[in-house]
């Protein structure tokens, strides 16, 4: 096929034009966080770091410190990711390889859950958490987020288990190992790439989550960066986009770092692909 730049200039021009709004937004996101635009304009006047003042002072006395909020977000995202991974590696193996009664039923359930829009359940979950006394606590949101990510996690891990050759397992069983030992010592190392991909994915999903903390943990103690940033934006009577964008940069740094490091693996898992 023709893969020269010359023969494709029209296509590249069209793509560049439609990508322009996004590129402009990314560019000014970066520029505006470290500069001050002319009043009423968009061209940066001076370069300065005052937009980042939220890092060393409280922008508003009623707000929790950014570091506390960042810690909350980190705990939330990593606890969710660990829970999802821990539950997925066992459940997915059972569904992929073990023969037990009602397996078909569980598999059908998994596929349905995978497609089911969980956000519709948020009102009921809100009330369940109140019953359990976990409302407005980080633990509550962690449990809910992990549970809601679980069908996806199991689905992805099942895909990875499915691609492990049966021969490995057969050999292990032939040599007299129990199914549990075969799983732990032979199969788990095979799906490690998948597991790390799922870990990254669930971490990012937790890091970006907005609606669940907003509804289930609105208090200052359990605030995460998403709700913190939203509150700063919503409470301001005169929008200070420089500040908003600096907070946004700070918030998105781990996401962008992970994206640059694991781009290929992430694209695969976001596409719902099964190959690591």
């Amino acid at each position, binding site marked *: 096929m023709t893969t020269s730049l010359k023969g494709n200039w029209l296509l590249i021009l069209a*793509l560049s034009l439609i990508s322009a709004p996004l590129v402009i937004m990314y560019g000014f996101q970066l520029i505006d966080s470290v500069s001050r635009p002319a009043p009423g304009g968009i061209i940066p006047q001076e370069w300065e770091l005052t937009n980042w003042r939220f890092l060393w002072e409280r922008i508003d006395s009623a707000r929790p410190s950014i570091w506390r909020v960042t810690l909350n977000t980190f705990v939330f995202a990593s606890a969710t990711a660990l829970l999802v991974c821990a539950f997925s590696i066992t459940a997915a193996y059972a569904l992929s390889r073990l023969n037990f009664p009602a397996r078909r039923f569980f598999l059908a359930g998994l596929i349905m859950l995978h497609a089911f829009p969980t956000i519709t359940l*948020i009102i009921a979950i809100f009330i369940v958490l109140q019953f359990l006394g976990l409302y407005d606590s980080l633990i509550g949101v962690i449990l809910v987020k992990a549970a*809601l990510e679980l069908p996806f996690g199991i689905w992805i891990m099942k895909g990875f288990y499915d691609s492990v050759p049966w021969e490995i397992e057969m050999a292990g069983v032939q040599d007299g190992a129990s199914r549990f030992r075969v799983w732990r010592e032979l199969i788990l190392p095979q799906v490690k790439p998948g597991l790390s991909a799922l870990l990254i994915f669930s971490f990012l999903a937790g890091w970006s989550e907005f609606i669940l903390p907003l509804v289930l943990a609105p208090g200052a103690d359990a605030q995460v960066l998403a709700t913190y940033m939203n509150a700063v934006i919503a409470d301001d009577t005169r929008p200070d986009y420089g500040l908003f964008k600096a907070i946004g940069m700070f918030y998105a740094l781990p996401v962008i770092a992970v994206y640059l490091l694991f781009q290929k693996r992430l694209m695969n898992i976001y596409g719902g692909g099964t190959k690591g």
Partner: protein
Amino acid sequence: MNRQTLLGLGFLSPALLAVVMFFLLPVVLTVVFAFTNMSTSTGILGGEYQISESDLRRLPAAGVREEAVEMLAGADYAVRADTLALFAAEFGDKRAQELEALHGGASFDDRRAMERALKDLRRDPIRSVRERKAAAELFRISILGQRFPTEAAFVEAITALGIPEADQAALTEAAYTGWTFTTQNFELLWELPATWRYALNSALYVVLTLAFNVGFGLFLALSTFYLPTRTAQTFRAIWFLPRILPPVLYVLMWQWLTWDQGFISAILRPFGIEPINWMRHTATHAWTFIVLINGCVGASLGMILFSSSLRAIPETQLFAAQVDGANRWQQVRFVLLPQMRWPILFITSYQTLSLLTSFEYILLATDGGPGRQTEVWALAAYHTALSNYGGNLEYGLGAAYALALVIIGILLSALYLRFFNFRDLVAKPRIEQ
């Protein structure tokens, strides 16, 4: 066989527990709550029994006879055996005996009168005003404004007041402050014109965004497919970012682009166009940007999925087409697109469901505004039950909204299960023990 079953179920059980707690239970509860009038004012954990001053007027309509209402409204303070016993416990038997001799069987309308009665004590007077007030409180028999945690306590109290048994059932029901089962949520949904408006908004939102997602996703995948690898990767990276950037930040960038001192306004000012908020100015503006904001995220998913299925098509087919003289449009139309039928169908069905139920980006971008022009069904459920300016959150009504989405969700995901070759996915395990 048995050990394997045990291992299988054991491996599955943590996930099962999570699914039961946060999927099955909420589904069942959504149905239950939809049939209640649960709200902030009724509380969640069941209510108490309380008749307040203002309740008295509505009691006759609730089937309580006038005489019973008068009894409730009537004598507030009474010197009776039971109130005297309370008084004796705190202020001594002697005072109680004297008071009984002076005012036994009397009743008073307000506390001031009761305090005057207490002043009549001569042998061992209660001198402090504060103590007299406290003593007067002990004779209070009215239940108005008083809270009773259980039905039994309330019935006991109204029996003590002398309310006839015939009125007790109706009174107890009227006094309950907790939630009760009702079908009025659905009647309300049926009657409110806003309901249809939200449904139409949802339909509009899903159709427009889906068309954008699939069309644009396909365009991105096909065009980058024909580009040299490096260039293609750059464009894919640009379009992949909306999907992984946190929604709060992603929408903030659009807010900046469109606000009245933002990019669009600044660019258009030299041409004499008045700066406006391009996202919120009119309903058309709002819808355009909602479709664009959601569409770029959806197109990103479409692009990734379509790109990977395009790569799976053998290149030889394209070479063959080229040899036969097919131009690029003909290659796309007759070679590539026919093989993309399944991914397109998958994206369409998957996104129909998720667009129908998601409200995150709309909440962040316009919050349903201007007016309620961009309020979709899912957002209405959220606003009704979880966030409104009135302060009274109507969980029951919100659950009724959500129930419609839950039912659609279950039906569609069951349909997809039949659709996307289930049998391939459930190949039997090969080790039989």
